[in-house]
């Protein structure tokens, strides 16, 4: 390409054609900017990707650095997994919703647990009051897990569980249910979130201090490498970091920096990154800025591949690949004119598909109002099916490659992300950065800046600060039966009477010993679970050994 000629021509165009028009008709705004505050020019041309080398920077899908996707055929081979996060009330109700979603063409399960389950409290704990069954399903013991997967063959579905601090317990329960169904662990497919670092940064369901949490996580890596080869043992999540207010660059930077911390911890525990690297998966957000989000996903894949190859000397191709789940942006939904959210979700989902996601959750339009109803959840799933089967975008791989703007933005995001990653490395890695409150502070400031832009009308949100309407129709929201809590408490009472309490106590004290000795905790937790020890009882043993983490308030 003759860049000199293009440069001359572009200067001429700018002066003769563009400036002439600008004098008479100025643009809508003085400056146009990305979500991370960089300027956007009016046009992009070969000059903006001059430094990019097609073969080494963009290349071909299924090959390093995977900018264009992790499989050579992408959605021509297999569509992404449509995976709607769901769970509420008790195990019976959630089991019904899962079987409904599967009957409607959903292809994977995604389990939402209530907060007590996520933070290691039984439903009858004082801390659980009012929270039982609210943001997800309440699970106290293996009994509830058996009900949750009733009539769902675990060798046929892949199951994603949003569980972090108590991931070892819930994964053990999942294995125990599989055992009862006669399914061997190596047949199980799915993901546990198991990403504790982002809990300290943005999501808040931590229990133990970072060091002990990292030990549990590496225990899980180690155990699963042998027993559960088909399971993704972590889903390193930027989703919640973005929801907490981060911009696109911060989302990727903090997530990949978390990833580096996990790889370091696993290597220190003696694991081979070529092996466990294959079981790492990621989870990103898809917000409104369509082209920026597409570029973000492409950049993330390339940066991670380079990190694995160059920093950790990983040679296994699968261990270099960044595979990810996407959820559309919950914080972009408005309570005002909620039907507009259907359209927002559709654009966000489309960006994730152009970005090459492996699985996708589309939000329901009523989620700024309360818990989604069956109707709104169905529309969300249909949105994905429309993209997959009607729009034609799944017939070709990475169609935005070669767009001067998207390639330029992909490169710029990569540069900005690397600056953040270097900064975190200089602090001493992500665990240290979190203890110092660095990512928390960055995110808090970005959230406040964004909110001020909304208030000033610089960030337009339809229905909220522009095109408002007065009469808002009332929306139905899903009501969680307040009886769920009583029901769970009754079930617990019965369980504690009927189970073999000697076996429970023996298993809990063995776990106690293992926790203080430094052995891998997984086999001990598995025994506890099988004797029907509860989530709270097991967590309390670990609390006694590891202590509890308290958030430091950064103001």
């Amino acid at each position: 390409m003759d860049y000199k000629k293009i440069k001359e021509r572009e200067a001429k165009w700018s002066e003769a054609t563009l400036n002439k028009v600008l004098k008479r008709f100025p643009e809508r705004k003085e400056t146009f900017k990305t979500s991370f505050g960089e300027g956007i020019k009016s046009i992009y041309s070969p000059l903006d990707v001059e430094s990019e080398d097609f073969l080494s920077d963009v290349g071909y899908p299924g090959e390093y650095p995977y900018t264009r996707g992790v499989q050579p055929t992408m959605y021509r081979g297999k569509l992404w997994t449509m995976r709607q996060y769901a769970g509420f009330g008790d195990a019976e109700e959630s089991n019904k919703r899962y079987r409904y979603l599967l009957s409607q063409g959903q292809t994977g399960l995604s389990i939402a647990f209530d907060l007590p389950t996520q933070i290691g409290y039984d439903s009858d704990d004082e801390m659980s009051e009012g929270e039982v069954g609210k943001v997800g399903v309440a699970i106290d013991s293996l009994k509830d897990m058996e009900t949750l997967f009733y009539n769902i063959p675990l060798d046929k579905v892949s199951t994603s569980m949003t569980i972090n601090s108590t991931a070892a317990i819930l994964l053990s329960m999942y294995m125990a249910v599989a055992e009862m169904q006669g399914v061997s662990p190596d047949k199980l497919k799915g993901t546990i979130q198991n990403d504790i670092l982002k809990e300290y940064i943005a999501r808040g369901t931590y229990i133990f201090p970072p060091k002990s949490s990292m030990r549990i996580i590496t225990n899980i890596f180690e155990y699963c490498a042998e027993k559960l080869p088909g399971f993704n043992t972590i889903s390193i999540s930027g989703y919640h970091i973005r929801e907490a207010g981060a911009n696109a660059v911060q989302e990727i930077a903090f997530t990949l920096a978390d990833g580096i911390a996990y790889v370091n911890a696993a290597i220190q525990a003696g694991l081979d990154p070529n092996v466990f690297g294959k079981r790492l998966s990621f989870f990103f957000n898809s917000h409104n800025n369509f082209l920026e989000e597409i570029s973000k996903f492409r950049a993330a894949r390339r940066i991670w591949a380079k990190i694995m190859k160059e920093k950790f000397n990983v040679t296994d191709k699968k261990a270099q690949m960044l595979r990810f789940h996407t959820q559309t942006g919950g914080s972009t939904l408005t309570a005002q004119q909620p039907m507009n959210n259907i359209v927002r979700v559709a654009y966000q989902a489309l960006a994730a598909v152009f970005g090459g996601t492996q699985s996708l959750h589309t939000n329901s339009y009523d989620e700024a109002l309360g818990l989604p109803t069956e109707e709104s959840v169905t529309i969300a799933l249909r949105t994905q099916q429309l993209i997959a089967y009607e729009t034609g975008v799944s017939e070709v791989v990475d169609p935005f490659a070669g767009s001067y703007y998207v390639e330029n933005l992909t490169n710029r995001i990569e540069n900005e992300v690397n600056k953040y990653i270097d900064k975190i490395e200089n602090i001493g890695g992500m665990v240290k950065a979190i203890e110092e409150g660095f990512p928390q502070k960055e995110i808090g400031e970005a959230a406040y800046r964004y909110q001020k832009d909304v208030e000033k009308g610089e960030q337009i949100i339809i229905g909220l600060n522009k095109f408002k309407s007065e009469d808002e129709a009332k929306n139905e929201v899903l009501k969680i039966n307040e009886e769920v809590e009583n029901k769970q408490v009754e079930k617990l009472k019965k369980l504690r009477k009927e189970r073999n309490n000697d076996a429970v106590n023996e298993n809990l004290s063995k776990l106690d010993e293992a926790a203080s000795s430094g052995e891998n905790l997984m086999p001990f937790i598995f025994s506890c679970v099988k004797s029907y020890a509860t989530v709270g009882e097991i967590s309390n043993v670990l609390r006694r050994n590891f202590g509890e983490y308290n958030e430091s308030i950064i103001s």
Partner: protein
Amino acid sequence: MPIKVLVAKPGLDGHDRGAKVVAMALRDAGMEVIYTGLRQTPSSIADAALQEDVDIIGLSILSGAHNRLCKKVLDAMKERNIENKPVFLGGIIPEEDYENLKSMGIVDIFGPGTSLELIAKRIKEIVKK
């Protein structure tokens, strides 16, 4: 003297973007703000309100546990004889719960999309009364 506000996260909910943004905005509006951090029990919130002698308390709940948690915070305040301190609420609160919450004693509820300016203005009005 500036208005003193306690911004609190009761229960197990970890969604603190709203609470933190509101805390920053109220500070910028000239108020003195104390933010409790996550996972506060109703009694620890009431204790903080008493010890810090705040003028008003803001609760942030997005987990759906608002009915129970608000009641418990208000009860804990009564036990400490500080039920005269006004309490407002923010988060994902279905409209059908507004009436019940207000009859319980919650002075105002700010849902998603409420402007920071409005929140600051309302707090000033409420505290003046």
